[in-house]
């Protein structure tokens, strides 16, 4: 049924925004982290969103013309921010270099908060679209009642 396409597209949008929210949370949580598995301070992460034609299975692609106009969204990559770390003079810190500077992640809390609000709103928009889809599907069940 075609109405399910709309639900799948909306849920892909929700999943992408949730993933984005996770990276933002990670950025905020690690705003003062000076050590990371890759070495050096934590580096800010950002998601890369990509649109792609919605198609479920090989069979569906084979039997119907691919719908290029209905596209879902997907997180295809997580970028690591290239901004130089913030150097703070803290000679007593265990991670201080020989000159007494500690490298802190270059994360702007205001920027992260703004992105968080943006992600929340986008998520809500997708929820509204999903509910509208559900509403329409339920309405179509009323035909002939």
């Amino acid at each position, binding site marked *: 049924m075609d109405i399910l396409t709309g639900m799948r597209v*909306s849920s892909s*949008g929700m999943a992408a925004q949730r993933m984005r929210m996770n990276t933002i949370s990670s950025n905020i949580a690690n705003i003062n982290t000076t050590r990371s598995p890759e070495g050096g301070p934590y580096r800010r992460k950002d998601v890369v969103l990509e*649109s792609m034609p919605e198609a479920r299975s090989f069979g569906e692609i084979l039997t119907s013309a691919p719908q290029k106009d209905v596209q879902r969204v997907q997180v295809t990559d997580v970028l690591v921010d290239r901004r130089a770390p913030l150097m703070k003079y803290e000679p007593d810190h265990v991670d201080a270099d020989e000159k007494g500077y500690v490298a802190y992640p270059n994360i702007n809390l205001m920027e992260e908060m703004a992105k968080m609000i943006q992600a929340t709103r986008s998520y809500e928009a997708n929820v*509204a679209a999903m509910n509208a889809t559900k509403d329409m599907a339920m309405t179509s069940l009323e035909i002939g009642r």
Partner: protein
Amino acid sequence: MADLLDKTTRALGATSNLRQTRHNVISSNIANAETPGYQAKKLDFENALGRALNIEDMAPAGNEPGHFMTGPGAISKVRADIYENPDVSVNNDGNTVDLEKEMSALAENSIMYKAAVQLINKKLAALRYAATDGGR
């Protein structure tokens, strides 16, 4: 038996079908509201459906390719016209989705869909009334 479902009911059926497609297109725009480079899509069918309603009563002119489709069945052959919305402002990441417009289009579309379904129900209720001998 002549058509059990009249022209109006068939037009309403075509409308609800096309509105489902439009709903999918709007959902896709909303899901991709923050995808860099994504172009907002728009779907038009009102004009095509209006033309089909006008030409459905004409006699079929044969199946010559390039001729207008007339006669019964013109309504069910209405295809939606999907294109990239030209009436947009481009973001600095190349995305052209206007979330407010999409949300209002979504609400409008689902209200119109419900209206079409209600009208189909009214038509069917009238049929049922006749078939049950005036509700007896």
